[in-house]
């Protein structure tokens, strides 16, 4: 870590140095997807027309014919629809495969290995490299799914995966089976990075009349209310192990950090610090929390143990300092927002408070979130700000070492609170592009944008760590 930092300081001696807009090789980037992303966009940092460079790596063409019923139970139809919709969406959203359109499929699709006719799948029109297929049956009070992943170009030894899942015959259980099998395929075809189909997103919703903390599956299904504070609850942050959600709420004593246990389904005790306490953030080992607190006067970044003990101050400017985010890979740095020089800017510091670096050079920059591989920040930024420059708040991605940035959203509305998926391929954020604040998700290159919430106003999404 020390080496990395010396390196960074040498490269960027001026904390206020403007972000270079010309293309420069980013050899340090190892993540294939993000390398593509930056090279494609760095030379046109504010131009969102995607050039063709770096897009030459074709994604695997995957055919996913609907799974077939293998028993005559009347429950089959409903559960098959749930399974097929969920499975298709998981693979389509993954960003690692190119799904072959169903209009190219032959009339007869396989439900069992014996039914696969390689010739019609591995040549045009489907021209698939891979095929996922299988069957679903409800029998004896259980739903059973058999699924295979076939390399249809390798007719001699086609099977990549063969799986069987059994569970209670409910919609939720069937959806979970689809997520599990999709994740297996994404793991195989996506460079060994685990899929995210079982991950959760926590957010704030006012649909019940008050802003409360809610949770949902990563694809927007299973939305459920966690807290019932009856005041204002904000800034949910799920712990790395998924067992607790820290958040900030207006209580009788002011804004306090509260802790919700996912195991007990209720609040558990957490100390009151005094002053206004906002934006808790978990360290990646789950042992510490960074928060913004005004207990000593101005809002500053503090760090405490996961149980609230050993609170100590990390920043000392005139503030206000809020929205800390740990380096998710190393836990060695904390990014945060400070208004100490005027409009809020994003800074990083070592987790012990030293080596303060300003990351953003202008405008209104807030809500930093660190990528799982530790190399990038995503943030909300109004780059052009001031009279005559009605900039919009958009989601950006910044390479921490070079401070090069890429604008990810362009389609209007106020966009804020980006949060990375556990695989680093997706970003969830809030946007008002539909007319009111809702949760949206996209690939980390800004594509495959889709809306996850539709009821009430929903904001401040936070993606689980796994």
């Amino acid at each position, binding site marked *: 870590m020390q080496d990395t930092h010396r390196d960074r300081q040498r490269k960027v001696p001026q904390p206020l140095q403007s972000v270079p807009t010309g293309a420069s090789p980013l050899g340090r980037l190892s993540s294939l997807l993000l390398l593509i992303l930056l090279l494609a966009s760095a030379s046109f940092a504010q131009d969102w027309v995607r050039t063709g460079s770096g897009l030459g790596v074709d994604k695997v063409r995957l055919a996913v014919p609907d799974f077939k019923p293998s028993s005559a139970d009347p429950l089959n139809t409903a559960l098959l629809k749930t399974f097929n919709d969920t499975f298709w969406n998981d693979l389509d959203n993954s960003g690692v495969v190119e799904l072959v359109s169903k209009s190219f499929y032959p009339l007869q699709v396989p439900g069992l290995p014996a039914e696969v006719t390689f010739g019609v799948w591995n040549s045009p029109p489907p021209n698939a490299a891979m095929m996922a297929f299988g069957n679903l049956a409800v029998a004896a009070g259980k739903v059973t799914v058999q699924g295979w992943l076939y390399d249809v170009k390798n007719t001699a030894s086609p099977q990549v995966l063969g799986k069987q899942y059994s569970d209670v015959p409910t919609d939720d259980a069937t959806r979970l089976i689809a997520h599990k099998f999709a994740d297996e395929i994404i793991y195989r075809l996506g460079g060994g990075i685990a899929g995210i189909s079982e991950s959760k997103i926590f957010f704030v919703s006012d649909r019940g009349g008050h802003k409360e903390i809610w949770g949902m599956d990563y694809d927007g299904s299973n939305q459920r209310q966690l807290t019932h504070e009856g005041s204002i609850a904000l*800034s949910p942050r799920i712990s790395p192990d998924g067992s607790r959600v820290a958040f900030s709420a207006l209580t009788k004593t002011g804004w306090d950090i509260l802790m919700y246990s996912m195991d007990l389904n209720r609040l558990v005790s957490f100390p009151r610090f005094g002053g*206004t306490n*906002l934006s808790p953030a978990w360290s990646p080992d789950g042992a510490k929390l960074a928060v913004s607190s005004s207990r000593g006067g101005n809002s500053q970044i503090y760090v405490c143990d996961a149980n609230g003990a050993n609170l100590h101050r990390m920043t000392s400017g005139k503030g*206000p300092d*809020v929205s800390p985010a740990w380096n998710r890979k190393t836990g060695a740095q904390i990014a945060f927002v400070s*208004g100490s020089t*005027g409009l*809020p800017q994003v800074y990083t510091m070592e987790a012990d408070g030293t080596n303060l670096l300003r990351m953003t050079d202008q405008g209104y920059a807030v809500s930093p979130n660190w990528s799982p591989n530790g190399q990038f920040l995503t943030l909300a930024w109004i780059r052009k700000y001031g009279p005559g420059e009605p900039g919009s708040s958009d989601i950006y991605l910044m390479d921490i070492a070079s401070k090069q940035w890429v604008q990810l959203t362009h389609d209007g509305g106020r966009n804020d609170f980006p949060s990375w998926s556990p695989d680093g391929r997706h970003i969830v954020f809030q946007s008002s592009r539909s007319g009111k604040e809702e949760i949206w998700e996209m690939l980390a290159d800004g594509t495959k944008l889709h809306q996850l919430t539709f009821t009430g106003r929903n904001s*401040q999404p936070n993606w689980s760590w796994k």
Partner: protein
Amino acid sequence: MNRKNISRKQQTWNALATVVALTAVLMLGACAKKAAPPPPPPPPASPSPTAAISVSPDTIQKGQSSTLTWQTTNATDVSIDGIGAVQPNGSQQVSPADSTTYHLTAKGAGGTQDATTRLTVTPPPVVQAAPPSTSEEDLFGQTIKDVYFDYDKSDLRGDQSASIQSDMLFLNQHPGINFTVEGHCDNRGSTEYNLALGDQRASSVKNALVTAGISASRIKTISYGKEKPFCMEDNEACWQQNRRGHFVYQK
């Protein structure tokens, strides 16, 4: 042409003068007839009337009554404005809603005599006692002025010092009042940053009051960020309404 006009004017004037002279002669003739009346009869020996009126007490509160008393002599026709014809001597209870001037007119064979008296009516005591009984909370609400801020700023703006001065004056005069300063922000910024900014705004108002001698123990602060806007429109007038330190009386 000009000469002709002049001579015509002169003719007109001459004619007018003739008419005026004739009229004067006729009128003089008429007057001469009226100006010769028979000598008037000697005046009657009747004494002229006298009149006096008084009211006691001469000041009442609204709803109370007072006694009006009058005496006349040598009068045949006595009346009081607003009451009507009355006995030559008498008294009467009156209870007017507003201050009233009573005008007594006594007419007799010997002439006419007036007298006046004034009854002042003051508002009832409940109304008079109302201001002292106004609660401190109402006074607080009527007197205290909120403090407004510039965009993204939490330092006190020059044009807000008058508000702060008058707030300090009031709070010094009412040492029993405890209150909360709420920090609010306009809806353009980000949720978390705005809450921190609102906190700084509330603190900045509190610090100014404490510096001026208001005890810190009387002042609570809370930030609402952009969670409880006063105004929901997207324009500067509305945003300014939302960028404020808002005073709330603490019961």
